[in-house]
């Protein structure tokens, strides 16, 4: 017997590690992978809540998140390829034609 809050804590930790990666890393692909880590953290929450409420809807949500993640990966990596062709770098600090 394991309390569900453990799963939720793990999920929150993964989500926050994803945020840290997004903020700290300096490579476009690694930043994108950090976002995937955040989504995985959220997915664990969905599955946990699905178990808590005995509702399959929570699990189905995860399917849709997977589809969206796949679509995002296809588009995001295509953008990364386009930027690599145009600028020959993947370092965010060099992608600075336009200053914030």
């Amino acid at each position, binding site marked *: 017997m394991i309390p569900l809050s453990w799963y939720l804590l793990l999920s929150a930790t993964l*989500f926050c590690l994803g945020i840290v990666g*997004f903020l700290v890393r300096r490579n476009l692909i690694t930043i994108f992978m950090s976002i995937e880590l955040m989504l995985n953290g959220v997915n664990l929450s969905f599955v946990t809540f699905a178990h808590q409420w005995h509702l399959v809807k929570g699990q189905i*949500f995860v399917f849709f998140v997977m589809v*969206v993640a796949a679509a995002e990966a296809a*588009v995001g990596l295509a*953008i*990364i390829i386009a*930027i690599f062709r145009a600028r020959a770098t993947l370092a965010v600090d060099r992608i600075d*034609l336009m200053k914030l």
Partner: protein
Amino acid sequence: MNTDLLRILPETILVVAGILVMLIDASLPPRAQRRGLIWVAAPGTMLALWASLIQLRLDPGTAFFGAVETSPFTIFFHVLICGIVLVALLLAYDTLPRDSHHQGEFYALVLFGASGMCLLTGAVELLVVFIALEISSISTYILAGYRKHTGKGPEAAIKYFLLGSFATGFLLYGIALIFGATGSTQIYEVAHKAASAQNHTFIVLALMLMLVGILFKVSAAPFHVWTPDVYEGAPSPVVALLSTAPKAAAFALLLRVLYQMLPDLRSLWMPLLWVIAAASMTIGNLAALRQQNVKRMLAYSSIAHAGYLLAAFAGLADKGIAAAAFYIAAYAAMNVGIFAVVTLISGYDEHLPLVADFRGVLYRSPLLGSLLIFFLISLIGIPFTGGFFGKFYSFSAAVGGGAVVLAIIGLLNSGVAAAYYVRLAVTVAQKPENGMSQAALPVPQIGVAVGAALLFTVGATLWLGIAPEPILRAAENAAHALQ
């Protein structure tokens, strides 16, 4: 089942039109002109607009097991979004490079994206909200990087994409917590169960996380950092679209989440939005003051306008929603219009991006110059234009809701904003210096399609400024439907 299909008719038409564009595009010879595909895209959008109006005859209600609904609220936003998309398509027809063979995918992406935005305004199931938001976002990420052979195009796309996906993560976590607290993701059920939910703190946390996601999409401070870069790097016809249509859809979602799903938490979200509205106005306007690039200036101005709009959320439910809906319509009309004019003056490749480059436009092309000044007047909020009534209703809603200080901050900000709008207007009206290269520049050609688009936006801006009652009544009906 028949009415179920009628309730998603506009979205279906947009998707079918997009697929038709792709099919015809594929069947044309590789080196053929693709511009003619507008004859599929534009009528498709008009048909979707008409279909939205047809939905007025349906009784308000939900379809597909409570996944989507039709009500005066959704119809208001459907018509608005279809109108914006139509103008953006006409603008793109005349301004996209004519020797490109890839206009087909541009039109298809715009149409698919529009279907996502329309679905977002009608979704009452958080799963549909999530997917519709992603459809609208992913298509705009791609469109933002459409000029991929310039350095700035992919840069705009990647910034928009990474920050957008990051924000979506927060929204999704919020949805997960809503599901955890109430055991449902259907907005009506959530609203029903939220009051009696055991883990109330879950709902509060979920609201915060969802707000991060949605406020990013409407580019409110402090989630606005992507806006200037994306607007600068994306092609101007795309900016005309993505500064208005996805924002209108996201504001519709914000209204739905706050007023329909979690109205009981008003005492919590009202002060938050108060701060965000004030911050957006102030940061947007102060940053716009020192911009030299016209598109960046308009980007900061759009952040400020998001702030004016959020001021309406301080109002009581009926007045606040109506004012917000009206403001979105007025903002969309003038913003699409000004980006259309800027596209024509700067050119698709943006050889004239700076405020200083706009000097003497009034003499080179009296029509474009006066249109630009007209839209600037509306953005300032001078009477007889849509911008005036938008601000008027928004601030009076805020005052009605007890946020007098916010309305005063808004008025002060409008004064600051006038400074940079007037600076651009004065530059446009200045005589070109003798021997300056600008005087020798060719007069921008105004094609039939873009002419129609300009006529439409000018007409809408004037109509909203002179006779706002019909639109205001539609907005009030929309507000009524949401409660």
